[in-house]
């Protein structure tokens, strides 16, 4: 039952992906079912952008579902929610009018909510679901009001009618709508400071679902922002882009900084999703600014970079989440401090995770490097904008992005090194089992995806550029094509992934050959790790995850505000014979303490009823939402 459904989902994902691909490549499709959705009827339109995201949904669903075959082990719980979740995500990019969009959007939220609650005996999961519900609905309220305003002012529920009408709107009106919708979408995308739900919710869900949530769902928020700022509202003022860039920088830095000290592997990945959304937003924001300053080519290039990173992140973040799932499966823990030595017990998983880590750390010759490179280049182009204040914004984003890149390397050295290398720190880790065939297959699939994305930027950029061009409503060429290299605006910079890959390969082989030719005696003797001649090595001697992050805890203590708790039980007067000594060094989240602790408190107090409903069944909940929807529509 479960297995067959997952197989079905995989096939479905494949078809959806192909469908999306055709749409992305430009053939428009339309589907209208007037009776299905109140007010306007269900209406779907396929445009390149929608096709692109549909492709993303389908392509990520395939490995996730294959993985789920082995991972869920025929557990029935959450099957329906999973199917509904994927379906909703497939509808969102195509929704062509307000009711369809909001309905699909809400279904997506509900399904994911249910999936977060998959293990409802776990209090952490329950709390996560609760935060998630609150945040989603705050966001939903913003979207609802924003869209209703647009409907009221343009007199149409159909998105297609908005761009034309938007030009007639007053500046303040457009700004208001932009802010409302951007807030709503940013919340879904997990942009700091609207991110608090994400690190709680993503880890709580089963890993293949986490992969979809991080790889796809949050990207739909980005899609929303693109539609609002570039399509529905026409050309906006530069500050829209500036805000996006700053928010992006904040998210990128904040995300990676929290990831760098996190000890829960899945939470770490969730935080790094925030970081990557930030990177995407930086590129998007740059696109906005270029667009509003009339530099269309650069705008297209920046957006293409954003799209590229969206694809890349889907690939390696899904890979990493599936890897983490395999670890949780094998070693039975999410806590880095309890892992170690897995590389010898789970060779396949470790190899896959290593590839993912290299990719997300944006290291050549893998795909993360391509989009990071493109983003950097896009930002470096800002010299063309003759406005110093904008240049300085770009400069900040650039520095932030660079720091993020560096920290990401540190973060994933730590994640991989502590989890997979050296000696196991616990019995469970020592007895870890390698993942099953389907899980491995799914990871292999994503490894291939990463490699492909890494080697084919020359093939991918033109269509991405075209998509961007369509979005901006002009048909400028994205970039000069060349089978080997991408040239950014002439001589500014060039990139050639195949050459890099080939060169690195050669460089790897060369020393091998030289050693053989120089017949250096390859005598290898294995002996214990050097411990200053005293004792056999124990896992107690290994650096811990917390220890590894200690330099960052010191440098960025204003952010983590680490506490140092030492309890000492001394023996009589002798301070040199301490009986017992306990040490803890926890860090806390700035945003949660200063922004949400009071906020959530208030919400909790205020909305007892809502809470009652949320703890109840999903259907009840659905009805409530639809009711609210209808009421508001009627009012409008």
């Amino acid at each position, binding site marked *: 039952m479960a297995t067959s459904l997952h197989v079905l989902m995989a096939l479905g994902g494949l078809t959806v992906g192909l469908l999306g691909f055709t749409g992305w490549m430009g053939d428009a499709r339309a589907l209208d079912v007037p009776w299905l959705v109140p007010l306007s009827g269900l209406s779907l339109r396929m445009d390149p952008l929608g096709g692109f995201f549909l492709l993303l949904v389908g392509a990520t669903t395939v490995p996730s579902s294959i993985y789920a075959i082995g991972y869920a082990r025929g557990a029935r719980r959450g099957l329906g929610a999973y199917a509904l979740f994927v379906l909703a995500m497939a509808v969102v990019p195509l929704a062509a009018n307000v009711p369809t969009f909001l309905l699909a959007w809400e279904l997506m939220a509900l399904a994911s909510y249910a999936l977060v609650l998959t293990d409802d005996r776990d209090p952490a999961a329950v709390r996560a679901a609760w935060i998630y519900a609150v945040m989603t609905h705050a966001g939903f309220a913003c979207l609802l009001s924003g869209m209703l305003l647009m409907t009221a002012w343009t007199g149409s529920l159909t998105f297609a009618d908005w761009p034309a009408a938007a030009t007639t709107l007053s500046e303040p009106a457009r700004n208001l709508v932009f802010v409302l919708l951007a807030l709503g979408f940013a919340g879904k995308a997990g942009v700091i400071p609207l991110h608090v739900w994400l690190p709680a919710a993503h880890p709580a869900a089963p890993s293949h679902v986490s992969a979809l949530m991080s790889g796809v769902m949050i990207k739909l928020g980005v899609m929303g922002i693109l539609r609002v700022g570039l399509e529905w509202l026409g050309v906006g003022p530069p500050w829209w882009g500036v805000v996006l860039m700053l928010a992006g920088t904040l998210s990128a830095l904040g995300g990676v900084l929290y990831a760098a000290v996190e000890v829960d592997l899945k939470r770490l990945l969730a935080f790094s999703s925030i970081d990557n959304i930030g990177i995407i937003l930086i590129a998007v924001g740059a696109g906005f600014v270029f667009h509003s300053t009339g530099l269309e080519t650069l705008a297209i290039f920046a957006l293409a970079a954003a799209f590229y990173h969206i694809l890349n992140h889907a690939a390696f973040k899904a890979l990493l989440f599936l890897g983490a799932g395999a670890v949780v499966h094998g070693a039975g823990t999410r806590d880095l401090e309890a892992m170690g030595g897995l590389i010898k017990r789970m060779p396949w998983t470790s190899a896959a995770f290593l590839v993912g880590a290299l990719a997300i750390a944006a290291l050549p010759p893998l795909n993360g490097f391509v989009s990071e490179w493109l983003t950097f280049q896009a930002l470096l182009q800002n010299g063309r904008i003759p406005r110093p204040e904008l240049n300085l914004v770009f400069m900040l984003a650039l520095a932030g992005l660079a720091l993020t890149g560096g920290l990401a390397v540190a973060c994933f050295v730590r994640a991989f090194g502590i989890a997979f290398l050296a000696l196991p720190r616990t019995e469970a880790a020592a007895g870890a089992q390698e993942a099953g065939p389907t899980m491995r297959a799914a990871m292999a699939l994503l490894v291939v995806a990463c490699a492909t994305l890494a080697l084919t930027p020359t093939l991918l950029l033109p269509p991405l550029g075209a998509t961007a061009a369509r979005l901006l409503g002009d048909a400028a060429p994205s970039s000069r094509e060349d089978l080997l290299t991408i040239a950014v605006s002439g001589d500014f910079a060039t990139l050639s992934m195949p050459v890099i890959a080939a060169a690195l390969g050669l460089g790897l082989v060369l020393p091998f050959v030289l050693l053989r030719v120089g017949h250096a005696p390859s*005598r290898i*003797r294995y*002996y*214990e790790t*050097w411990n*200053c*001649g*005293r004792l056999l090595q124990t896992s107690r001697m290994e650096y811990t995850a917390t220890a590894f992050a200690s330099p960052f805890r010191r440098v960025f203590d204003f952010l983590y505000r680490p506490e140092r708790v030492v309890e000492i039980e001394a023996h009589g007067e002798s301070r040199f014979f301490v009986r017992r000594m306990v040490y803890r060094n926890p860090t806390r989240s700035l945003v949660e303490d200063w922004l949400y602790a009071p906020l959530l408190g208030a919400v909790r107090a205020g909305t007892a009823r809502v809470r009652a409903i949320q703890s109840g069944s999903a259907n009840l909940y659905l009805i409530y939402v639809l009711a609210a929807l209808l009421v508001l529509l009627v009012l409008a």
Partner: protein
Amino acid sequence: MRRLLLQGLIRAPLTEPLAPSDDTELAALAARLDLAAKKRLGRSLSIREIDAGSCNGCELEIGGLAGPHYDVERFGIRFVASPRHADCLLVTGPVTLNMAEALRRTWEATPDPKIVIAAGDCGRDGGIFQGSYAVLGGVAAVVPVDAVIPGCPPSPAALIAGLLDALGRRS
């Protein structure tokens, strides 16, 4: 400081030429060293110093080797932090029972080809500490010794002479 730095650049270095060696015992022991090892380690020797229980007198003099007067680095000899990087274990002191194990492990941790040089009278045969309940004896009691540099403690000059003889660098 500027003056000191300038001195370094302009003045001739304080390093002194070698005194001719007159150590017969050394030559004899050095002969035991196989030539292959000499050929490999002759021009570049990384030393790991191990105090196996000495009174730290030998350490004082060995510490002087890197200084300006003796400057072993000019012979391509240097002291390294990890036995993995070492070619030569320079062991001092009577090997105490508490140190024997550590000495053996360090020797194991050092990649071949490696040479062991015992420095000081205690390193040779336990010296004045022979017969103590806590002392095993000379270095040779734990690991194979290739050369001995006697003295209590051997002077830096004697140490250099011994090292170079052991490497067959002085004839």
